[in-house]
């Protein structure tokens, strides 16, 4: 158990600090966040052709409402937690790689759902948007990480 805790906390700290470094932000996190905004806008445009995206900002041409996807909103921290947990867990490397790829996708699918829901909520009720954005969705994203991790543990247990 001590080995798991040490690897998990060490990797978590290293990846989190790495993510905060300016070169990593410029080369990886910001372009990824822009891609996330584009993907979310493309999805939103299927239902509403007035949705636009520019960089990290998604806006509505009709009513002027806009959201900017900032640090903490791109699912990167959730992915860091998942990667740290999966790598620290005793399982085969192929299983770990598969769990990381699948888990990252699961987090981003949930995150796009979050962005889409917040985009509509913000146009309808800004107080509800604030409440959901700041307090509720972070919990649901972490719950998503926990679900993926539990599925990974079950899979690792069955194939051990």
């Amino acid at each position, binding site marked *: 158990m001590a080995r798991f805790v040490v690897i998990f906390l060490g990797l978590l700290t290293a990846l989190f600090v790495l993510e905060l470094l300016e070169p990593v932000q410029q080369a990886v996190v910001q372009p990824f966040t822009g891609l996330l905004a584009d993907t979310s806008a493309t999805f939103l445009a299927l239902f509403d052709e007035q949705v636009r995206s520019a960089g990290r900002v998604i806006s509505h041409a009709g009513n002027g409402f806009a959201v900017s996807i900032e640090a903490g909103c791109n699912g990167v921290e959730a992915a860091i937690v998942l990667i740290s947990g999966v790598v620290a867990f005793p399982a085969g490397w192929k299983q770990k790689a598969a769990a990381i790829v699948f888990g990252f996708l699961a987090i981003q699918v949930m995150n796009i759902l979050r962005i889409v829901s917040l985009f509509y909520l913000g146009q309808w009720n800004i107080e509800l948007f604030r409440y959901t954005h700041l*307090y*509720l969705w972070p919990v649901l994203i*972490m719950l998503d990480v926990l679900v993926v991790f539990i599925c990974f543990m079950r899979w690792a247990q069955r194939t051990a």
Partner: protein
Amino acid sequence: MTSWLEQRPATRFLLTVLALLPTCFVIWHLLGSAIAAPSVMLSSWILLGWLPGQVIEVGLQDTDMLLVSAFSAEASGNSSQVAPSARENIGYLIDTRTLSYSIPFYTALHGATRIQSSLSVYSWNLLVLWVVLAVGLVATGLKDVLITEGNVLLNARGMPPADLVAVAYQTSSLLAPTLVPVILWAYAARRSDLLRSLLPGSLTSKEVSKEDT
């Protein structure tokens, strides 16, 4: 249905968490400032003891923590953050809920798991969450004052480097509110049926042998 769920502890756990979350969040919302009060008291004690020349008052204003700095709005040329109850000094309002939502999250995780001495474990972990929340409020407060005052605060005795404040703020706002509840829950539930069914022997053997003896 009950026996089907009894045989699937992971599914039962996740469904129970999802069922408990709305109730926990409603109670958290209704409790308002009371839920953050212990952490704000601890933050006040830390900040006033640590930076007595820079922080002159820390208290609760509804669900916000009000931090009044020793710096005046006129001197810094920035009056945009003057809080209503501060007269000449700059006040900073910090939304405690952006950090305290860890408490309803932990409550739902805890409530969804069969844990021995549940109430006692919950009380201890609530205490840990309040301490983590206090550290987060201190980091957020320092970050806010640092943005306005810059070098004036950095030159103060005992003040950590700006990068350390930034990392402490990012950790306490982006990671801690969601991760600490999960870690506390995992530790509290380490002997539960759910985790025993999921963890390999290498992670549980010591715990099992301890309990068996």
